[in-house]
């Protein structure tokens, strides 16, 4: 085989690898674009059970209940338009509280309950999950509004 042909084969292999990687990224990103959901997105678009997503919103006041095992909590997440029930087993971060923002990672079960495997409410007092920036929570009406 001539050197030129070999270079051609290598270049073709490289091209195939790059195109393949690009397609892989595109398809993965397409799923990812649907990775973050607010409760209203859940209601309008629907999320199939078992699909890993991030659910973001505010923890509804007086919705937080602790199960008898001491490590499982139930709470509702709202974005002002819709409310979704959620369950989490584990040690909740310190800044996780009623009326506070939360981003929960997990998936819905068949009954429409969100089973969170991880709660993100970072350690900094000033931390606001990126996805919730520009949203405000009304303490009295328990409503969330997206600022324009």
């Amino acid at each position, binding site marked *: *085989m001539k*050197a030129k042909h*070999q*270079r051609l*084969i*290598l270049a073709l*292999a*490289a091209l195939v*690898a*790059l195109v393949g*990687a690009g397609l*892989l*990224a595109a398809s*993965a*990103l397409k*799923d*990812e*674009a649907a*990775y*973050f959901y607010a409760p209203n997105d859940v209601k309008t678009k629907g999320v199939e059970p078992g699909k*890993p997503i*991030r659910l973001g919103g505010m923890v509804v006041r007086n919705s937080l209940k*602790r199960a008898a*095992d*001491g*490590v499982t909590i139930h709470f509702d997440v709202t974005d002002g338009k819709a409310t979704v029930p959620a369950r989490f*087993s*584990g*040690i*909740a971060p*310190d800044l996780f509280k009623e009326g506070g923002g939360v981003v929960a*990672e997990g998936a819905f079960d068949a009954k429409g309950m969100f089973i969170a495997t*991880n709660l993100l409410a*970072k*350690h*900094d*007092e000033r*931390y*606001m999950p*990126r*996805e919730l*920036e520009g949203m405000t929570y009304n303490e009295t009406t328990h409503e969330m509004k997206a600022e324009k």
Partner: protein
Amino acid sequence: MIAETGLAALWLAAALALLQLVLAFAGLKGNKPELLNAVRPAAVAQGVLTAIAFAALVTLFMRSDMSVLLVATNSHSMKPWLYKFAGTWGNHEGSMLLWVTVMGVAGAAVALFERALQRNAHMATLGGQAAISLGFYAFLLFSSNPFARIAEPPADGQGLNPLLQDPGLAFHPPTLYLGYVGLSVAFSFAIGALLTRQVDAAFARAMRPWVLAAWVLLTLGITAGSYWAYYELGWGGWWFWDPVENASLMPWLAATALLHSVTVLATRDALRAWTIMLAVVAFSMSMVGTFLVRSGILTSVHAFAVDPERGSFILALLALYIGGALALFGWRIGSVREGAPFELVSRETMLVVNNLLLTVILGLVLIGTLYPLMTEAFGHKVSVGAPYFDRIAGPIALALMVAMAAGPLTRWRKDQGRAVGKRLLLPLAIAFLVSISLSLFAWGRIGILPFLGLVIAVAVGVASLAPLWKRKLLRTPLFTYGMVVAHLGCAVSLAGMACDSAFTVEKLVAARPGDVIQTAGWSIRFRQITPIAGDNWTALQADMDASRGSSSVRIQPQSRFFASPPTTTSEAALLTRWDGQLYVVLGEEVEGSRWQLRIWWKPFVTLIWLGGIMIALGGALALIGRERRGWLLKWRARNARMEGGEA
């Protein structure tokens, strides 16, 4: 006075960088060797001055000089001395000062110790280093002055983020920066080579030690950062695909590719243009990472302050340097002659495959990291998380491992596919055996990626030792050992990752003092909760006895409260055994005076970081091996000369 000395040193260093750039440019352009004579002293002086500025800032932090704004906003007089010291770089300005210091010192090192490079290329390289440094001096002096004073000093500072108050702060950032910024040397080498049109094997041999050194430190820095996050955050994870982690991973991927391609260039004089390109890309990734972390567009413990002006400044630097280097590349690369050809089945091809896969992973990580920022610019918020990165990086990384097993067993220039297959027979047989036994013992308990990961890790581990097969071990060169150790380290690390994700046992309970918790062969007796106090924190500490078999060990997870700034952190208790780690986190108190406990048994998880250390050690061995060979040759040549003179 100290602050002013530091600031003056910084300005002086910046002026010298400008001088160095002008001298190198004018000297090379006008062919005036007398101008070039001043370039090396300028670089050395710059290194000394940045070191002085840095020492000044460290002194201010150690003395808790609250009249300096940076100290007042980031330190506290009650802090233990280690965190006063390490807190110097636990903030935006300090970390950028560390950045330019590393850059200055690296430039001085290139001026002092680089002997292999031709004089013109050496001068052009130092000119390039000065050009990059200049931008970062400007950034520091105009938008992030670490030495600014305040009129009314407070009695006490605001304190350091408690998450950072850990011995890890003394090690992780400096090591990471040494590697991260050390890559600027490779960038400058590429610039110098393009300007002087000297891209050949000799150039690659001169550049290789610098790349190796930066890569070793970067590897150590990332490994340390991963372990720190693992024990400090209390989440039991060791990599979160956080944009900031990606910011350190991307230069590492590029540097790893560069390390291999520069070897091809040094040994076989092939892949000339590609190597230059990678040298540019590696440090560009460092700069992109800095932009992501320092511009405040991300929320993270690493992003200290949000200031859009700084973001645009770094973005401008980024555009200038990356754009400039790529333009130079496009302009000059046509005049670089084609390198040596090679056959399709050869070590060179295997290394091309390595480079291709590393570049693809790099590209995918870059896309995943930047995608949310790009969509946000169009008013659409998207987050890209671990599922994306796991899904794309996992399979390609496994393919890369397979290539890594085959590469060292393939000969340079030309080999036979059949012969390579024969050499791979043993690893393949072992992979087969491992997959059979794993299927028998762990079927249904183990996911597909961890399964493949374990099989490949064992096979690659065996294959990476194969280059030593049938060789005289004492006469094998040190850099061959370096390669073997580094590749084995990759296998060890992969095995740790696979074991962690496949076999970790987690237990979550709310327990009363006196309870005994059984999990994964461990029996943990929860004795009591006691309040304790440290230098600048108070804590609730759980006393527990963990036992497996006869002996029991006291473990004490804590929940710590820091007053300034007010924060609670969780200090996990870690019990390390040869076959894994017991990881216990204390949560909050719930009704019935019970305490939440999260307990993990993580089999062989420590292999992840052991592998990281082995990879770095392999790089260090290769570095020492290459350098020692150079010294030996020189020494022999000198002896021969002297003997000749006497005779």
